[in-house]
C-alpha cells in the first residue's frame, strides 16, 4: 500500500499545474488570520499544492467561500480540521481538477441558487479525488460533476447527500455512517465500502452511460429508503448494473430497489418534456450474484423490490435471503412489470404480511426460480405467490404458509418438491400448472398425487426416495436448470435426475477438512536468480509487482467469442447465460473473468480437462477461497489457487474426489 500510495502521490503532483507553487499554511487559527505566516485564504489564492505546517489536532476556523480557478491539491497531513462553523456555504468551488487528502472537514452548509442546491464543502467542475478524508456534520458536502475518485474516506453524520458524483465514480474502502443519504452515483465502481445507519437511504444509482459494479460492500441499518436504489433505465442501450458479493443486513426500508424513473417523475409532477425524455431512455439490465440478504424489513420486497417495467430484466444467481420481513407482499423478493430469474437461491425464514412470504410476482411480472430452496418462510398467503411463476427443480418445504399461491394463469412447476407446507402445499393453483414430474406431500396441488419426498436435514431427497430419481432429465439438462443443482453439482443421470434443489447431498460444499496438517509450499513457490525478490502474491504487499504468470497467456481483453470457443476446446463451459458471460469476459475492469481466463489458458493448454467444468463456478470458487482477492489483472491471479478452484469445480460437478490438479487433466 505504501508503494501504491507513493505512485498516486506522483500522479497527483503531476495533475496540478507546474506553474503553481507549493504553499504551506502556517497560520493555524482561521482562514484569514493576520500577522506572520501564510493563512489558508492566501494559500488557496495561490493554488497548486497546499500543505499545512500546523500542530496535530489543529482546527482552522473557516469564514469564507473560495473559488479555485486552477488545479489544486490540499493535503492536511492528517493533522488539520477545517471547520465551517455551520455557516460557511459551498466552501470550495473548483473549476479544474482538485485533490483533497488526509484532511478533516466539518460544519459546512449547503447554499441555494437558482440552479438548485449547491454543496456545503466542494462543488467540483473537473475531476475530483478524495483520499483519506473525514467529513462530518455538514450539509450535502460534496457534489462532483465529473469523475470522482474516493478512497479510504469517512462520511459521518452529514445531512442531505453526503457524496454526489455526476461522472464516473470510483469509490473504494470508504465508510458512510449516519448520513441522511450516503451516495448518489452513476456508472463506475463501488467496492469494499460500508454503509451504516443512513437515514434516508444509502446509495442511489441512476443515469448510467456505462456499467456499474457494486461489490464486496456492506449495507446495514439503513432506514427511510432502500439501502441500494437502482434506476431501471440507463442513458445508453445495453448497460448492466452488477451487484455482487455484498451484505445487506437489518435495513429497515428494503435492501435493493429497482425503481422506475418515469413512475417516480410522475409522483414529482415533472414537466411533460422531462417525462417524455425519461420515457425514451433505454432499459438497463441487472445482475445480482452471491449477495446475502438478512434481517431486512420493508413494505414490499424486503430484500429485492424490483419494478422492471422499463428494465431488460433482473437475474439473481447464488443470492441468499434469510429472515427478511415485509409488512405487505414479499418478505424476500418482489418483481413487477418484467422478467426476474432467481437461480441457486436460498430463501429461508422470510415473512410477509401479504402475499408471498418469500417471493411475489406482481402485475405483469414473470418470475423464474430454479435450483433453489424455499424453506421455513411464514406468512398469510403463499411462500411463493402472485402472477406468472415458473419453478424448475425447486424445493418448497416446511413453510408456515401455503407453498404456492397463484392468482393468474401461465405458471409452470416442474421437477419440484413441495413438502409439508402448512396449511397446504398449494392454494388457488389451477390444473395444468404442475407439469411433468413433481413430488407433493399432500393432495392440494391439482394433477399431482401425494407422495413423500423423504428429505434429509438439508432438504436433499434420501437415496431411497423416488424423488431422488424421478426428475425429468430433459428439464434438468436444459435452461434454466442447466444440468446442475443448487451447489452446481452435476445432474447428468440419463434416466432420471433428482426432484428439487439438490441432486445429491452437497458433501463437498458442506464438509470441512479435519486433517489440519501443516500445509507446505510446492514447486511453484520455487524461483530462480533471474526471478529475484518478489513479494508474496497472496498478501499483495507491493501492488504492481510483476507475477510469475507466463507471459504467453492471452491478454485479458481477448475477444470473448474466441475465448469461449477456445475454452470449450479445453472442456471449460458455463452455467450462466452466454450473454452475461460474454459481457464479463469483455470487462476486465469490473470482473475477474478476463484475468482468470487468461491464466486458465496457460494452465490447461494444450490438453484441457478430462470432463467439463463451468467457468463461472471456477471463478466463484476462486473468489471465495480464503484470502483470495478478486483479480483484475493477470498478474494478480494466483495459479495454484486457480488450480484448486478448478479441482473443486470438477469434483462438485462430477462427484469426483480428485485431490490434485493433474488428476483432472487429460
Amino acid at each position: 500500500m505504501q508503494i501504491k500510495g507513493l505512485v498516486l502521490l506522483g500522479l497527483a503532483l503531476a495533475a496540478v499545474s507546474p506553474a503553481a507553487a507549493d504553499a504551506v499554511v502556517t497560520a493555524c487559527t482561521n482562514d484569514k488570520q493576520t500577522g506572520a505566516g501564510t493563512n489558508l485564504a492566501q494559500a488557496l489564492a495561490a493554488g497548486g499544492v497546499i500543505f499545512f505546517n500546523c500542530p496535530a489536532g489543529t482546527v482552522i476556523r473557516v469564514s469564507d467561500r473560495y473559488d479555485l480557478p486552477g488545479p489544486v491539491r490540499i493535503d492536511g497531513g492528517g493533522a488539520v480540521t477545517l471547520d465551517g462553523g455551520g455557516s460557511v456555504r459551498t466552501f470550495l468551488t473548483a473549476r479544474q481538477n482538485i485533490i483533497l487528502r488526509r484532511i478533516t472537514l466539518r460544519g459546512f452548509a449547503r447554499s441555494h441558487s437558482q440552479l438548485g442546491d449547491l454543496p456545503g464543502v466542494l462543488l467540483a467542475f473537473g475531476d475530483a479525488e478524495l483520499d483519506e478524508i473525514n467529513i462530518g456534520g455538514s450539509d450535502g458536502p460534496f457534489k462532483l460533476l465529473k469523475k470522482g475518485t474516493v478512497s479510504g474516506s469517512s462520511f459521518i453524520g452529514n445531512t442531505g447527500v453526503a457524496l454526489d458524483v455526476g461522472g464516473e465514480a470510483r469509490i473504494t474502502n470508504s465508510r458512510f455512517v449516519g448520513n441522511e443519504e450516503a451516495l448518489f452515483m452513476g456508472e463506475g465502481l463501488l467496492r469494499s465500502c460500508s454503509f451504516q445507519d443512513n437515514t434516508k437511504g444509502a446509495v442511489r444509482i441512476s443515469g448510467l452511460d456505462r456499467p456499474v459494479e457494486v461489490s464486496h460492500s456492506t449495507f446495514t441499518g439503513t432506514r427511510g429508503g432502500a439501502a441500494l436504489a437502482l434506476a431501471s433505465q440507463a442513458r445508453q442501450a445495453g448497460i448492466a448494473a452488477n451487484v455482487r458479493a455484498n451484505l445487506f443486513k437489518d435495513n429497515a426500508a428494503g435492501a435493493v430497489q429497482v425503481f422506475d424513473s418515469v413512475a417516480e417523475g410522475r409522483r414529482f409532477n415533472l414537466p411533460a418534456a422531462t417525462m417524455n425524455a425519461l420515457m425514451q431512455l433505454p432499459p438497463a439490465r441487472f445482475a445480482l450474484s452471491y449477495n446475502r440478504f438478512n434481517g431486512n424489513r420493508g413494505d414490499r420486497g424486503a430484500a429485492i423490490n424490483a419494478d422492471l417495467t422499463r428494465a431488460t430484466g433482473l437475474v439473481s444467481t447464488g443470492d441468499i435471503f434469510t429472515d427478511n420481513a415485509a409488512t405487505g407482499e414479499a418478505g424476500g423478493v418482489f418483481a413487477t412489470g418484467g422478467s426476474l430469474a432467481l437461480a441457486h437461491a436460498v430463501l429461508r425464514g422470510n415473512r410477509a404480511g401479504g402475499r408471498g412470504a418469500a417471493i411475489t410476482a406482481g402485475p405483469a411480472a414473470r418470475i423464474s426460480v430454479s435450483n433453489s430452496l424455499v424453506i421455513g418462510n411464514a406468512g398469510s398467503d403463499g411462500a411463493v405467490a402472485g402472477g406468472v411463476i415458473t419453478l424448475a427443480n425447486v424445493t418448497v418445504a416446511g413453510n408456515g404458509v401455503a407453498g404456492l399461491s397463484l392468482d393468474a394463469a401461465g405458471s409452470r412447476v416442474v421437477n419440484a418438491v413441495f413438502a409439508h407446507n402448512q396449511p397446504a402445499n398449494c392454494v388457488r393453483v389451477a390444473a395444468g400448472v404442475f407439469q411433468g414430474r413433481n413430488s407433493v406431500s399432500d393432495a392440494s396441488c391439482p394433477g399431482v398425487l401425494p407422495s413423500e419426498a423423504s428429505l434429509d436435514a438439508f432438504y436433499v431427497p434420501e437415496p431411497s426416495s423416488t424423488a431422488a430419481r424421478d426428475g425429468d432429465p430433459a428439464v434438468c439438462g436444459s435452461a434454466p436448470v442447466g444440468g446442475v443443482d443448487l451447489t452446481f453439482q452435476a445432474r447428468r443421470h440419463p434416466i432420471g435426475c433428482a426432484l428439487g434443489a439438490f441432486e445429491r447431498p452437497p458433501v463437498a460444499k458442506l464438509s470441512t477438512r479435519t486433517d489440519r496438517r501443516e500445509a507446505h509450499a510446492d514447486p511453484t513457490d520455487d524461483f530462480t536468480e533471474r526471478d529475484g525478490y518478489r513479494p508474496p502474491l497472496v498478501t499483495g504487499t507491493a501492488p504492481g509487482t510483476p507475477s510469475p504468470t507466463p507471459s504467453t497467456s492471452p491478454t485479458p481483453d481477448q475477444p470473448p467469442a474466441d475465448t469461449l470457443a477456445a475454452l470449450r476446446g479445453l472442456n471449460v463451459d458455463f452455467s450462466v447465460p452466454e450473454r452475461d458471460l460474454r459481457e464479463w469476459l469483455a470487462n476486465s475492469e469490473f470482473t475477474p473473468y478476463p484475468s482468470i481466463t487468461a491464466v486458465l489458458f496457460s494452465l490447461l493448454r494444450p490438453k484441457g480437462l478430462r470432463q467439463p467444468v463451468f467457468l463461472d463456478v471456477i471463478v466463484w470458487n476462486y473468489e471465495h477461497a480464503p484470502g483470495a482477492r478478486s483479480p483484475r489483472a493477470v498478474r494478480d491471479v494466483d495459479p495454484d489457487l486457480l488450480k484448486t478452484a478448478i479441482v473443486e469445480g470438477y469434483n462438485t460437478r462430477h462427484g469426483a474426489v480428485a485431490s490434485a490438479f493433474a488428476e483432472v487433466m487429460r
Partner: protein
Amino acid sequence: MRVRSAAIALLAALCPLGVVGAAPLDSLLAAIAAEEAAPAVRVRLFIKRGDVADVYYIDRIRPGRLRVLKNPRQNGLEMIVIEDRQWLRTASGWKSAPAPADAISQAAPSLAALLKNGLSSADERVEQDGGRVIEGEISWSASTTCKGKLRVRIGPSARPTFLNFDGECASKPTVFRQAMSYESGFVIDPPN
C-alpha cells in the same frame, strides 16, 4: 529485541569447516555486514528438504521490526515482531506476546565463524554490472550434517542479492534459495 540480519538466519544454518581463499571470504563477510546495516531488507526464501518445501517471506526494517510469512499461499504462519512485542497469527486470530530478548540473534551462530570454518574451494568472479559471484563448497554440522555447493551473488551495491545452496542434509537432498531486495517503501505495523 534486536533484529539481526535476515540473511543470517539462513546463512547461520549454512556453514563451516574448511578453508577459503581470503578474497572471496572477505567479500562475503563484507556483503553480509552491508546487508545487516541496510535500513530495510526483504527476503524471499525457498527451502526444500527431501520432498518437503517451504517458502518464507521475511521483511525487516531497522531497528526492531520484522515480519515473517511462511507459505502464504497455503495460509501458513505469520509473525510480526516490533521491538519487544510479537504477534503470531493463529486459527483463532492474532495472538500477542512479549518478544523474547534477542531471540533471533541468540538463535544465530557466528556467521563469520561459520564461513571461516565451513567454506572451501571458494572462487570469486566479477560480473559486467560490477557485481560479484562467489561459489564454493560448504559443509557444517549442527543438529545434523550438511554439505553442498554454495553460490552467492553480491550486487553492485556490495550487498548480497541471491544465495543458492544445493546439497544434502542428513543424507536428504536439500536446496535453498534466497533473494533479497533492499528497496524501502513497505511498512511493518502491528496487526489490526
